């Protein structure tokens, strides 16, 4: 792989203190593609050239249902130019061998804070070296909403981040505020009347040139936009009654609401589905039902699944929109894919789980024409993972925004040492698999055979639960590996009894 000069720099910086030797090993060792024999030399001249990046040999998950194994993605000037099996990789392309890994569209967080260092006019105030931005990239997030601005996590850049400055058009429609509800209804009604009058005028205009255009006076323009379908309003609602009323309002006026929260959505999923709603949910939110009510209520792990099965588009956000390493670890933005994984645990189909943090999120933000899936012509916002994105063991190995590698796990200090990439200087001489703990136990037998079997019970559980074989840290370049995991369970168990007992 050829890192362009500035990436190479960035890559080397944090490592310098750790292991001096790793400096040059990393880029060199990655260059496994036949085209690049002299990474250093090419890196020099790279800057003047058109920027072409090729991810070779990965399992491409388009985010729309398609999965292409051992395929190639070609990125030119920040856009996806081609992907598939018969892609011609130009000679000057920067090639990253991602065989054995998976390529997904970059994730989208529909709410965030602190990723850009500050809010407001991001072009003038973003901190593109902000640690939280790196961590979010490590979580696979390449686009996030800050305030009401949709922006990309373009590390090291202060320009070209902003995708859309008005992410949402918020409306408040809650039982707790009847006055407000009344106002919303009146506004919508006024807007509906106006639109009707406007259409009538348009018709009449053809025959009668004198016809007067209906006055916009007193008509709420936001409501007009909503009813014309130019924007979709977003509501914050959790309780069943609020959700029902929003659904009815939407059906009455004919717009498709976006509902943030939607905790009790599973109790009225059919209504919401009929209203064409999109729900932004947090699968792990926990709230008991109001015991004074007889009907169903409270949160449910099945919320996302139920909503989805009734035709509601589901977008997932974690419980906390920031990156916090203390306190509520596990429910912050770093765990966006894990959060989506919990929706799957509750019954959401896997593809819908992936879509809930990619294309569906792009849709509610109105930016799905550019990002959210792997399609030719879309922005090359991609992540390369070492396993199933929605599995908790999976790490993002590379994050790519607009065709530029902005995150490389092996080059950042956060996760480089955890299951390092095999070609990294940090990697142990003997490879270990995910979840494996004790290389010390191995020496009695052949270490290579031993390791894959050291799997702790967690590994088995997940394998069963997911119906997938993530094998996250499988080394693509070593053919022996895939064979190993098959028999070992039986023969090894006695040896590992100590490990197993611990669990």
């Amino acid at each position: 792989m050829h890192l362009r000069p500035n990436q190479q720099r960035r890559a080397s910086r944090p490592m310098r203190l750790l292991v001096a030797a790793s400096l040059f090993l990393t880029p060199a060792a990655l260059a496994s593609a036949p085209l690049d024999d002299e990474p250093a030399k090419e890196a020099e001249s790279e800057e003047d050239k058109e920027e072409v990046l090729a991810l070779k040999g990965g399992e491409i998950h388009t985010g729309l249902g398609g999965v292409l194994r051992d395929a190639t993605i070609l990125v030119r000037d920040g856009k996806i130019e081609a992907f598939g099996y018969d892609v011609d990789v130009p000679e000057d392309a920067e090639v990253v061998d991602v065989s054995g890994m998976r390529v997904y569209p970059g994730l989208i967080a529909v709410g965030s804070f602190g990723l850009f260092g500050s809010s407001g006019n991001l072009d003038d105030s973003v901190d593109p070296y902000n640690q939280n931005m790196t961590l979010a990239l490590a979580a696979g997030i390449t686009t996030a909403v800050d305030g009401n601005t949709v922006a990309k996590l373009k590390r090291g850049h202060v320009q070209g981040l902003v995708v859309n400055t008005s992410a949402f058009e918020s409306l408040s429609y809650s039982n707790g505020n009847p006055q407000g509800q009344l106002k919303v209804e009146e506004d919508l009604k006024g807007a509906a009347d106006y639109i009707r009058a406007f259409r009538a005028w348009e018709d009449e205009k053809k025959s009668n040139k004198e016809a007067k255009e209906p006055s916009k006076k007193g008509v709420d323009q936001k409501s007009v936009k909503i009813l014309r379908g130019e924007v979709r309003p977003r509501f914050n609602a959790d309780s069943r009654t609020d959700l029902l009323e929003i659904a009815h309002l939407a059906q009455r006026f004919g717009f498709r609401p976006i509902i943030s929260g939607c905790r009790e959505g599973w109790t009225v999923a059919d209504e919401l589905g009929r209203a064409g709603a999109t729900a932004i949910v947090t699968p792990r939110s926990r709230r008991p039902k109001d015991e004074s009510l007889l009907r169903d209520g409270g949160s449910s792990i099945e919320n996302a699944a139920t909503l989805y099965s009734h035709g509601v588009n589901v977008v997932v956000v974690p419980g906390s929109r920031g990156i916090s390493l203390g306190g509520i670890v596990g429910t912050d933005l770093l765990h966006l894919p894990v959060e989506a994984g919990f929706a799957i645990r509750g019954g959401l189909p896997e593809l819908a789980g992936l879509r809930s943090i990619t294309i569906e999120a792009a849709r509610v933000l109105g930016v799905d024409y550019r990002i959210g899936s792997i399609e030719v012509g879309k922005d090359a916002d991609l992540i390369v993972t070492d396993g199933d994105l929605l599995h908790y063991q999976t790490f993002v190995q590379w994050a790519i925004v607009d065709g530029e590698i902005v995150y490389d796990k092996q080059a950042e200090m956060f996760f480089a040492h955890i299951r390092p990439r095999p070609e990294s200087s940090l990697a142990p001489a003997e490879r270990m698999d995910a979840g494996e703990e004790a290389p010390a136990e191995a020496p009695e037998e052949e270490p290579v055979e031993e390791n894959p079997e050291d799997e702790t019970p967690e590994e088995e559980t997940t394998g069963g639960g997911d119906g997938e074989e993530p094998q996250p840290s499988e080394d693509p370049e070593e053919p022996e590996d895939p064979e190993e995991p098959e028999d070992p369970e039986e023969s090894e168990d006695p040896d590992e009894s100590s490990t197993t007992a611990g669990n």
Partner: protein
Amino acid sequence: MILSPLLLLGPIAAAPAAPVQGDLFVIKAPRVELGDGEVMEHAVILVEDGEIVTMGQDLPVERGIPVVELEEGQVVMPGLVNPYSRYGMLGGGYNDSRPQVMASAELYPSAAYKAFLENGVTTVGQYPAGQGIPGQAVAVRPKGDSSEEMIVEDGVYLKVVMRNSSSAKRNLRDGFKKADDHLEKVEKEREKFDKAQAKAKSDKKKSSSKSKATFTPPPADPRVQPFFDLREGKLRALVSIRNAASYAHLVDAIGDEEFEWHLRIPLTRDIDVFHVADEVGERGCFVLMEPLITLVPGTLRQRNLPAEFERAGAKLVLLPRTDSKAGFESFLEDVGVMIGAGLDRKAAVRAITHNPATFMGLGDRLGTLSEGKRANLLIFSGDPFQPDTKLDAVMLDGKFVSGDMDQ
């Protein structure tokens, strides 16, 4: 080799440290740090009128010239240059763009400047206070009875503060934009003038040939002039940045504009500028930092950023860790610590003498010890960077101004 064309030869042993009289004398030093990183042993320095006339190794000295004979172990070094200080100045500044403000206007001689001399600083760059674009700095010689006597050179750099904010970026952009506006205005005036001239000519074709009016462009707003100076290379900018991001914003704000700019990167708190070290190094600009080890923000990983920037190709200038007497006192020791932590020793010497002088455009006058330079030099009891070394004497323009080596 002859010491001076005026004085004829004669390899003569030096007289016992005679008091320096008149304005011609010789310093014989066992070891001289030249300031550019090189060292000269057994150096003989001939000083006349506060200027180094000749210097070389083991030069013969004419009888009768007073000689300051240094002891074995003593080291001579150029006077330190601190290009970024407000010590001895009062008051705060504003938060907007005032590029026309001159720090020299607030300069006044005071006892405070003694602190520089006592610690070996013989040239100081003093900048105006404030955020935004507070104004232009002045190079000062920390001795004198009037500010005129102290000023070495005025307008040595324009201080610019860059932050991750639209207002900071606007200050810079607007400055150049106003310069453009002014040019446009001048152009319009000129056209008007030309038209008027042509008209006048045709009107009184025969009668008048007396008045040859010349076009005088409208004067530039004093706030605009510094930006013209920047463009024309008459002025350089020193941009103070807060972190790697503000460097990115600086580059963004500058856009295609071309002018000389250098960086002030405070290391007084943990900072992530290592992200841009190579970019800065490629530019090869001067980088002003404190001799401090910092941590990668949010971690306990130490970094020697001065060494990193120096290695990357930036021209390093080291400043005292605080702009105070305490900072001046521990300065050389702090630099010594950085050398211990991996900073190249030669680079360290340059970073406190030659580089800061060159940064202020005074490199041809001071900052190194060679022919034609001011005799601003320091005499140490040993290696300047060792903590137990004493600063025995400070010479400013050929006169001892501090230390025990009185004459």
